[in-house]
């Protein structure tokens, strides 16, 4: 049951090898686009290495972009895993990287549930699980994702992550994931949620 496993902490405290690494050991894979970063994360994890998506430091940033934090000691293996599969600009030592916001808030309305992840919100109907609204965010994939998601059932809708290009899209995917978990966990539990955060 989803709710029994759901940890309502304000930050993602999940054990993460990369998170425990000293700064000197951390490296960043820098990409031109968010899609490439997301693709690389999947490849690196599938290859059995630890990594996480983070904000690049100001000196490397371009806008709505992501970087992949890795163990720099494994740089060779990372390059081998990514070679020919992902386009990236380079791998650099870490310097002052921020962590992607991982706060989620759930609000109950009479007939609807609103899930807010970072700056993005998704609203679905308790009866039927229909996505009725998405809001928040200012990146250019957000109006498109709104069109693609509203009117679809949570259980049948495409994942925002598969269509998103930007950080706002990634945050909407987090809202979607929580909403789907709520829906699949049974709406009888949603009433117990109130307004809470993790």
């Amino acid at each position, binding site marked *: 049951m989803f709710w029994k496993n759901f940890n309502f902490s304000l930050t993602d405290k999940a054990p993460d090898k990369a998170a425990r690494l000293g700064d000197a050991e951390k490296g960043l894979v820098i990409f031109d686009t968010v899609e490439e970063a997301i693709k690389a994360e999947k490849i690196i994890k599938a290859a059995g290495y630890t990594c996480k998506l983070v904000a690049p430091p100001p000196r490397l940033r371009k*806008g709505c972009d992501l970087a992949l934090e890795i163990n720099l000691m494994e740089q060779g293996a990372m390059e081998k895993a990514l070679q020919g599969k992902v386009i990236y600009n380079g791998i650099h030592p870490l310097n002052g990287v921020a962590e992607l916001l991982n706060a989620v808030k759930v609000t109950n309305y009479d007939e609807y549930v*609103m899930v807010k992840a970072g700056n993005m919100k998704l609203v679905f109907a308790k009866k039927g699980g229909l996505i009725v609204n998405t809001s928040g965010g200012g990146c250019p994939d957000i109006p498109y994702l709104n069109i693609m998601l509203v009117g679809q059932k949570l259980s049948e809708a495409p994942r925002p992550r598969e269509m998103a*290009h930007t950080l706002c899209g990634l945050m909407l995917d987090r809202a979607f994931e929580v909403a789907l978990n709520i829906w699949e966990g049974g709406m009888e539990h949603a009433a117990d949620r109130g307004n809470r955060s993790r």
Partner: protein
Amino acid sequence: MLLIAGIVPDNEYPLTVGKVTQAEDGRSLLTDGRRIPCAQGTAAMLSTALAVTKYLGLEAPYAVLAGDTGSGTGTRQIYNYLIKNITKLSPQVLSLHYCLPILTLMQQLHLAVREVPQKPLLIADAGSMYAAKASGLAPQFDLFTPDASELAFLADPEAIHPAYISNYLFEGDITKAPEFIQQAYRINGAAKVMLVKGSVDYIAAHGQVLEKVDEPNVPELECMGGTGDTITGMVSAFIYAGFALEQAAIISAKANRTAGLVTKVTPASHVGELIQQLPRVLKENLCSWSGLCTR
């Protein structure tokens, strides 16, 4: 000229520049004869700005639009067009909206705007606001219209995007807005005037809250995609009409809430329903809110 720039969620939509008109169906908009898809975002902003300019008897907004679903292609077309043509266009108000936050383009546009003999009033929301803040240009703007999450981003000296704000800032609800507003001004993350959209709307300048708008209280508005866009569209139009920045912001906050109330919005309502009620809301209230009682 009120010039509004933003993306359209359709990759096939070419760079389009022109005056905005209502299509025959009464719902969608046309620019240079090309239909703008009905959606949250810049389309909702344009619809609202058009409703207000029409009500006030002003020239309709001009738009610079291009298709972009996240790759930044349309964003680059829009910004490059503005950089090249802003002096020729010479708008009184330039309102920058949904786009990919590309910092170098924002910096180039800012330099181009500085060359315009009659400097336009600058408004930014959404991705354009992110780019303005992240490139250190926030104080050069006349108005930002962030929501609570975006305010936290503006108040975070390290953040380059609202998805990367510190958790302690995200925890703060809208009641912490005065504190965040002060901080945003302190770190040069704020425009001259701020309209913070939320369950309570705050209008601020020089680091201080000038006005709180919390009535009517319509919590369902937070659920609806596009209700922030309607406020930004309204305030752009009122500023274009000659209202002071602060007054335009206060009126827009009140009108958005009142439109939500009379529309009886639910969490499933579409922003178009709210926009349709705006002429009625302005007719019934603008005189008492602003002293403008001629219509």
